[in-house]
């Protein structure tokens, strides 16, 4: 019986890839373990091995084809005596691959919607005062933007170095440090053992000793092992020393839910770190901010927690081609202007907010979207100014509701913007449960566009 070979998912978040090269041709017989093809993603090139034995009957996707969706049938393996040469070319529809990391038969999760439908990215940021009119724009993934930001600062300042698990020879677990070892060498791009508490302490101590370390956590979930150094050593020492001790360290890595990685690997630490005086906490959404704020973080004299998001790493955004473009810490940005309701968000939630705003526009409600960008210090003036304009606020946060950034925004709006409020502020957050693994439950637990739309309609008394 003929076996369909499908485009494999090489990681839990892979959506599509390039079929770089076929290593077999039609008529070749293969056995289990034979390398069939090379598959390329923006992170890596991987070999695709056959699980079954048989004869390559028909190759359906030519080598060099880009954007092949996970689950697409790329070839047919014929059993003994079978003729599959008449097999149809691949359909556009993607089939379910049960048991693969990517369960494509289900409804896409919110995170994936953000990835696929990140249409707002292409819009020039007309209202961005940080970018002069007429600036040439290039498309960059967030991953590249972060790397470029680090590399520029490493070129500028000899004291800047990167340390963490797999940052050097492996090129980064999520490929954010790709190419840095080659350019800067092992002295400045340091692979550490898997000992978060120890290397976070070493990074913090190196900052106290006058260097400018960038400490990468493979994800912020693992930084809980090191949170003592982030809070007790890095954040408090300047104060405890009466201003003598400096600690200009950047702790960075992916934060928040990824895709189907379960409760221990899916958590947003934004509210945790944002509650700590002595820290700067940055959580950018798009590539421009990722780069400009990374540069600002590295230059800051204060310890910075820089929260990235794995699901946005591969997304492309327009980035201004400017020399040494450093963005201000502590300044929110208006992503979309509107007059009826303000949606406040940060990180991956901004994508959700922008989709909701698009949908609301079709319903006659103009939403203003504010990207906080920095969680500490929080730009409350920007929130209050938008509240004064729209009189209604919804907070969209990919994280738990209790003691969240959303809670903080609610408190600010009530305490300092009460007279402008025409409706209670609503928090749209993840469900108050550990993140489940099952695809349907995970989707139910995370924020999505529909929930934001519903909340906005509610504060506008539209239903």
């Amino acid at each position, binding site marked *: 019986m003929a076996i369909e070979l499908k485009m494999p998912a090489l990681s839990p978040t892979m959506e599509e890839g390039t079929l770089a090269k076929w290593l077999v041709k039609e008529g070749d017989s293969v056995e289990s373990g034979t390398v069939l093809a090379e598959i390329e993603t923006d992170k890596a090139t991987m070999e695709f091995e056959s699980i079954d034995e048989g004869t390559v009957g028909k190759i359906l996707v030519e080598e060099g084809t880009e954007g092949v969706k996970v689950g697409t049938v790329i070839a047919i393996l014929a059993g003994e005596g079978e003729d599959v040469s008449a097999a149809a070319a691949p359909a556009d529809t993607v089939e379910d691959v049960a048991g693969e990391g990517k369960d494509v038969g289900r409804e896409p999760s919110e995170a994936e919607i953000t990835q696929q439908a990140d249409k707002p990215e292409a819009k020039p940021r007309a209202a961005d005062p940080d970018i002069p009119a007429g600036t040439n724009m290039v498309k960059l993934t967030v991953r590249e933007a972060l790397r470029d930001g680090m590399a520029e600062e490493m070129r500028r300042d000899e004291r800047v170095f990167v340390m963490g698990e797999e940052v050097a020879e492996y090129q980064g677990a999520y490929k954010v440090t790709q190419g840095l070892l080659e350019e800067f060498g092992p002295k400045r791009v340091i692979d550490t053992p898997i*000992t978060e508490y120890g*290397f976070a*302490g070493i990074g913090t*101590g190196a900052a106290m*000793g006058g*260097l400018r370390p960038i400490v990468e956590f493979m994800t912020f979930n693992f930084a809980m092992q090191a949170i003592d150094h982030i809070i007790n050593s890095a954040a408090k020492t300047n104060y405890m*020393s*009466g201003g003598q001790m400096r600690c200009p360290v950047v702790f960075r890595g992916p934060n928040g839910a990824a895709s189907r990685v379960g409760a221990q690997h899916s958590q947003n630490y934004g509210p945790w770190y944002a509650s700590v005086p002595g820290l700067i906490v940055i959580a950018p959404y798009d590539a421009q901010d990722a780069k400009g704020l990374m540069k600002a973080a590295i230059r800051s*004299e204060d310890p910075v927690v820089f929260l990235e998001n794995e699901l946005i790493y591969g997304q492309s955004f327009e980035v201004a081609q400017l020399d040494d473009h450093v963005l201000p810490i*502590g300044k929110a940005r208006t992503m979309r202007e509107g007059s009826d309701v303000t949606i406040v968000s940060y990180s991956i939630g901004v994508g959700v907010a922008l989709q909701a705003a698009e949908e609301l526009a079709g319903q006659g409600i103009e939403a203003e979207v504010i990207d906080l960008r920095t969680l500490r210090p929080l730009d409350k003036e920007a929130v209050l100014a938008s509240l004064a304009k729209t009189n209604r606020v919804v907070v969209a946060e990919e994280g738990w509701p209790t003691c969240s950034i959303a809670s903080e925004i609610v408190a600010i709006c009530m305490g300092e913007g009460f007279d402008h409020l025409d409706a209670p502020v609503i928090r749209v957050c993840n469900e108050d449960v550990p993140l489940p693994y099952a695809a349907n439950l995970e989707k139910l637990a995370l924020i999505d566009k529909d929930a934001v739309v519903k909340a906005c309609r509610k504060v506008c008394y539209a239903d």
Partner: protein
Amino acid sequence: MAKAATPKAAKGAAAPSADDAADFALRSLQQALEKQKRFKADGDDLLHFYEQMLLIRRFEEKAGQLYGLGLIGGFCHLYIGQEAVAVGLQSALTEGLDSVITGYRDHGHMLAYGIDPKVIMAELTGRAAGISKGKGGSMHMFSTEHKFYGGHGIVGAQVSLGGGLALAHQYNDDGGLCLAYFGDGAANQGQVYETMNMASLWKLPIVFVVENNQYAMGTAVKRSSAETEFYRRGTAFRIPGMEVNGMDVLEVRQAAEIAFAHVRGGNGPVLMECNTYRYRGHSMSDPAKYRTREEVQEQRDHHDPIERVKKDLTEAGVNEDKLKEIDRAIRATVAEAADFAEQSPEPQASELYTDVLVEEY
């Protein structure tokens, strides 16, 4: 009880192998120390050690009094009995180059740098003139001028931070080293071993110093530690160990000379265990019921580090009057520091909001 140094049993006469050579490297520093245990100090050195140790003793006694009077609050960990460790080690440092970091029992290390006792005592009383503007307290004092990096309250955290200071020395290729002190209690913290692993892997210029004062708060070493010989604990990371009598300033100094030369030679870290004894409780609020009065008295009577150097001075021909004169001067210095600490004003209320962040955003 402080242990006497016990030389290891000689190995059998088997032919030397590569393993033996590696094992020898781990023991070589201790063997160098066994050859000559005490630093050959001249009269000036001895007097200087005596003065510094006595200053720490009298300062800490006064701090204990001020605590009793309610002038010092919170936690206050006294260094009485352990003076030879900080003085012996820090006297061997290159000032302005090498860095030092320790835990919360940090008054002695500050004083061993020659930092003005007034600003240290004023920090203990929480005054604006304190070295941390009164915002750190007993456990959180720093002097970047002397490359003294604190003063850390989380047990064991200073060891990883010290690894970072050593990384900075190596990165800058400045020839400096980091001296990272921790106690027998901290020696059981996981991050200490994470740091030893990386320090040895990267050959960082760091000397790990276990100040084994025999008790982690109220828990005797043998009740908390499967391996009570802390100097052996670097073996798993190929870090040579040294076992040092921390009640003898000249032995500590000699050990420092050997360890520092090894580290400065680019050979990576050294783990030095200084066996010592704290006469007072863990902190001021500790009644120390976990040990007998006799045990403490035995240490005071027969192992006191200050008495020991006093004996050395007498043998070197320094007369009693000279020592008395030093004692008087130190008492005056400490009294002056206490007066200053008591009389100087508390921080302004506006200081509450300063030094949280360096920059404005």
